[in-house]
């Protein structure tokens, strides 16, 4: 069995670490630490997992949930204040959606829908992989994805293109 080499690790960091951080941010306030620990655990594995990306998302999810449970001692007000100060996305130009507005709209979504949308759009996982990750059925994941997207579009005020007759 091969192990994780430096090339693979560098590629994982460059291509998937931001999405992993965004995914972990859905539960905890220190997502970078969670992602870093997950990558180090991947390096320590004696062999490569069958699907490295799915394995990473599963480890990040478990660690983030664990951190969020241990952080319940903190006051919700402090957590909410800290969240507002940190945008989830890089600043955008005028042609794209506003990053701050997208962050605010995402924060208002239920956790189940938000998790599915983040994993699907930025994590590039398939619906089947998300279903396995969350322990739900594929139809449930698809339904959450659709309803979450619809809610986001409504909150962001994106107008529907006119229908052609």
């Amino acid at each position: 069995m091969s192990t994780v080499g430096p090339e693979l690790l560098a590629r994982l960091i460059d291509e998937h670490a931001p999405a992993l951080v965004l995914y972990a941010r859905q539960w905890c306030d220190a997502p970078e630490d969670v992602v870093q620990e997950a990558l180090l655990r991947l390096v320590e594995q004696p062999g490569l997992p069958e699907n490295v990306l799915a394995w990473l998302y599963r480890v990040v999810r478990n660690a983030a949930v664990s951190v969020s449970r241990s952080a319940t001692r903190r006051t919700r007000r402090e957590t909410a204040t800290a969240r507002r100060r940190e945008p989830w996305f890089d600043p955008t130009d005028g042609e794209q959606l506003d990053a701050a507005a997208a962050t605010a709209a995402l924060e208002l979504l239920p956790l189940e829908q938000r998790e599915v949308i983040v994993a699907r759009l930025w994590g590039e996982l398939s619906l089947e992989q998300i279903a396995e990750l969350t322990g739900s059925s594929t139809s449930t994941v698809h339904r959450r994805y659709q309803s979450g997207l619809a809610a986001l579009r409504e909150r962001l005020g994106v107008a529907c293109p006119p229908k052609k007759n």
Partner: protein
Amino acid sequence: MSSEEELNSFAAELAALRPRSDRLDRDRLMFLAGQASVGSQKCRRTTRSRFWPAATATMTAAAAALLVMFVASPRVEIIERIVAVPTQAGGEGVRPAPDAAIQPEAIERRPATEPRRAAQPTTSRFAAALAGWLPASDGPSPRATMSYPGVRDAVLAHGLDSLPTPPSAAGGNREPDSVPSSYRSLRESLLEIEPAGSPSSNRPLRGIPFFSGAHS
């Protein structure tokens, strides 16, 4: 455009947003990953390298335990019983020296599994010894209550040494140490024990049943 396509185009717009990753220190993460990989390899190598010392220690401990068990176990002692049988090699009426009385066939090394019939060659000696041991017919004795099968079993189990010492010749009118081979030798031996003309010389040989009727 269907609602599915509308959602897909909106999803593409959303996916165009780039998640922030400025707080993730890439160089530090690579350094820590290198440390972790070395640590995991060292751990695996340590586990592999500890196998043979552990196996050696286990085998040494087992060998030491076996040695202790061997030393501490009780030893099985083989007892060689030397049976001294009186013979007539020294002449009639002369008791042979103790060393000369030990015959080679008297040293019996009989395995435990050997049937008791193997003691048949010593029947004559046994009969002679028994003849000197059996009590007189007219005198009550505590040994008279011991039956012949009991004496036989005792001798077969423990050898001739298990026979009790027969009564002395002066008290019991018997000669236990030698068996006369003929009537003449028996008579001469009796004459040596009892002086001629003594009142007891006319008594029958009550100690030896075989000769008890021949002398009368």
